[in-house]
């Protein structure tokens, strides 16, 4: 049958996570930051599923469901915040919100 080493799956997850991390750190637009966070969550979920698949158990998938749920909740709240952010600062620059400096 199909034989995919677990490492490849995890490596894919790792690459996607790294991309997401770089995106969070690189981008100044809040929406892009949120998108990159989604990428990271997705990658983490992928890692879970790969692991669950190796052991032929449903636990990995269940974990992914939870992650998905959390991501959905987070995105809705986060985008609401983005709207507020835009109202307040008239721009989507994350660096504008630096009143807590010093």
């Amino acid at each position: 049958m199909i034989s995919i080493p677990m490492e490849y799956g995890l490596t894919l997850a790792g690459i996607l996570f790294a991309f997401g991390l770089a995106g969070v750190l690189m981008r100044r637009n809040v929406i892009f930051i949120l998108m990159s966070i989604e990428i990271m969550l997705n990658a983490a979920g992928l890692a879970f599923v790969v692991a669950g698949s190796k052991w032929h158990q449903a636990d990995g998938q269940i974990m992914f469901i939870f992650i998905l749920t959390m991501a959905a909740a987070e995105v809705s709240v986060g985008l609401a915040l983005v709207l507020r952010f835009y109202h307040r600062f008239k721009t989507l620059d994350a660096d504008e919100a630096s009143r807590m400096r010093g």
Partner: protein
Amino acid sequence: METLFYISSVIAVIATFMVMVKKNVVHALLYLVVSLLAVALVFFVLGAPFIAALEIIIYAGAIMVLFVFVVMMLNLGSKDAERESEWLTAETWAGPVILAAVLLGEVIFILLHRTGPPFSPEIVGSRQVGVALLGPYLLGVELSSILLLAGLAGAYHIGRHFEDEGRGGGRP
């Protein structure tokens, strides 16, 4: 089947890379959708059809649509795209790329140490997942429903317009 896995992973990586690089928000979003679809395909290959379907429905279907709606509301245009390219200079992405690369390197290093035997994925179907959800993970299900409730209430409250604030001004 393996080739399917490799192809979809390559597509996922490329699409994610394009997400990072694109200046236009909507383009990046679309690339992100493609990436998610590719990952769903990977799930399918790995024998988790239920999760693959969930990924497409919820992640690509609901969350990304939410993103698109918000972007449309914010009415981001080409001016913003220019600003993005202004912001994405070499000195900006050098540091993060290095950090991410180092992290990736560490992860791969760990992985290389433990090469186990390749496994043959069985299909873990929806029935199995459902039984596990309503069995050992019942509490988690309940908690995530509370989380969704909290998210709902929070999003509603935060996104609300107050009477004394106009569309383009006012303090939050």
